[in-house]
């Protein structure tokens, strides 16, 4: 689980920071993205939502990741900071992924919840 988690987190954020449209294969039609409480269903809508986020460049720095097994996958919680568009103020965020296994045994993002830390 630990290995899978590390692989996933590294892959997710490096792809996100390079070109977030390439994240599409991680999601399925039943996947849900909740970005700052705005909810999107399905891989294509998620890709669209991600691509349309109001920043061009983004750099994620993830400080901590934690994971727990779930009956059908893994719950991953990442806490870190991100910088958008060469800004100078890093924003703290948490992102919670629920990875699930599909019929063929490969993992996909079933639920992805992103929130900036506002407190």
């Amino acid at each position, binding site marked *: 689980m*630990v*290995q899978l*988690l*590390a692989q996933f*987190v590294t892959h997710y954020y490096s792809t996100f920071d390079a070109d977030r449209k390439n994240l599409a294969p991680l999601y399925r039609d039943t996947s*849900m993205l*909740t970005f*700052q*409480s*705005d*909810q999107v269903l399905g891989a294509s809508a998620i890709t669209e939502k991600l691509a349309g*986020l*109001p*920043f061009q460049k983004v750099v994620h720095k*993830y*400080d*901590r*990741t*934690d*994971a*727990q*097994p*779930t*009956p*059908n996958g893994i*719950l991953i*919680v990442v*806490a870190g900071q991100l910088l*958008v*568009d060469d*800004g*100078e*103020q*890093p*924003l*703290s965020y*948490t992102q*919670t992924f*629920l990875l*699930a296994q599909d019929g063929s045994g490969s993992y996909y993002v*079933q*639920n992805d*919840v992103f*929130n*900036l*830390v*506002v*407190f």
Partner: protein
Amino acid sequence: MAPTGPRNASGNTRATPRASRGGISKRRAPGKTDRDGDVSMDAAAGSGPNGGPAAGRGGARGRGRKDTRGTTRASSRIAENVKNFVGGRDSVATSKALFNKVTLKVSGFQASKAAQNDDGGRRALTDFLERKASKDKKVTIGKSVMDKDYFWISVNKGDVPDFLRLTGFIMAGAPITVEETDEKMPDVSSTTLELKAKLTEVLAKRYNPEQRLLDLSALGTDEILRSMDVFSQGSRAEKAFRALLRIATDQYKTGDEKKEAFQAVSIARNDINDVGQVFQLAIELPRLKRLDLSGNNLDTLAKMSKWRHRFKNLEELHLTGNPVTALSDTVSELLKWFPNLQNLNSQQVRTPEEVAESLKAQQPTPIPQLPSNLRDGDNNVAPAFLQAFFPLFDTDRDRLISEFYDDDSWFSLSAMPGTGRALPWKSYMKYSRNIQQIGSRSASTQQRLFTGGSLIADLWKALPPTRHPGMDQPNQWLIDCHTFPNLADPSGQGFAMGLQIIVQGQYEEADLSANVFGTRTFSRTFILGPSKPNNPPPQHPYRVMSDQLTLHNWTPAAAPASIPTITAAPQQAAIAVPVAPQVVTTLPVQPAVSDDALKAQLIQEVSKRTGMTAEYSELCLSGTANWNFELALKSFEEQKGNLPPTAFIAVA
């Protein structure tokens, strides 16, 4: 005002940390050299005339070799002193013993090239005198004061002849005179006060309170300034300009007051050929709205580039009469530099609407945050769970376990110690997981995943007591909730609905081990699933399958108090997060606090705590502290020894 040549033509760009501060200063002792040691070793090597080494070797005590050396040193030092005393020569030992200070005054240096330096040649002259006087021994100058006529120095009595013989020496092209005097070294504070009084007089005539205009134009023609002879050289003119600005702005404590008092400044017709010569203006009055630079000698944009990222509020700029206005790209560049600029050389170059747009373009688009949302399939599971959960977590964790957890429940926590926090992290770190750090620690990381209610209960006993805000304070919480369909039903009958709840908020904590109270920001993710059919009562239809707690640095955006209470105004991140219209508004998020207002508040608070000016407080906050109040205070504590006196609000 400016020198006509390039600024460093006279080689005066050397950094002189002491230079800009007028007045008295104590010379630092030169780098410590083991003078005694050197002297004694040299004398010993020469097998001293006073029989030092011999005495050592033939000592009655007959010591070993090592001791012989020591004795050699000591006796030759004595020999040296005796020699100096007999010879009537000053020596380190005698001058230290006598410690008599004599005042000398040096003149003639005013004609030297060094006098054009920023410090009036003070440093160059000090170095020159010390070097030349140190012919066969190291000679240093104690206190020194420079006034219009003399450079007053205090030296050891024994060194006086070494200095007096320097009369007639040529220092940077000018012969100097050194004379002994019985006069007291002038009290520098009176000289400074006199200077300040004159500059204040100059300023009084040049400030227009109706227009909030500080008119520093054509300073070279000012009668008082001419009588002070401050504009004979460019570097002294720059210094005078800085002094004028400082005196003018000193009476205003905060950036807001300065902004109110000085909306316009004219530095027209001062022969400025690089804004670096008047750079201080951007430091003292960064929020200036109108600036007149006309009639100067700025010929390229490069000569203005030092102000490129300054004066963000500048609305009106006059450059008429500067060669740079003839260049084709000047206007377009300046519009980029100054996002608020509307009026250039009395021409409208941008409408207020365009200004608004250019400002908007400069700001990163905030990432919108929707309010909390409980999409739990309308069965009221999430609110019921949360309303039961947090009060119980604060008051009776054991009962909480028995209500909602079973043998298959997971709990883990992830914390990262922040810096400058009042609250210690120790209680959490023992149990904290961070799977980023796999490898050597993976075993302990695995152990920190707590499985089953009884283990979790034990862990929770070890965690500090908490107090979460009431669920009836919606602006203290940010909650996301989602259903997901394909959980295996524990009864083994197909799939059941699961619920994922993500809560963000803050709680008060009492760390009893350290006796500290404070606030923490947390995120907590729950996965709720259907209860097992054979669970003991009380029977809830659902149980906690996963409970993950992540702790963050608490970001007290606008809270000056060190111990905030949960009833205080809710905290907001440093960046404005506008709240979109609510979709499902069970728990709305408070409206965003404007970025600027927050920052102003923080600056004011830091200034109050540290005594620094608003500018430095802002620097302190905007640096690595990243608008974190506690971090800013910490970095101030670390840096305060290195800050210039100008960083602080002058105490009247």
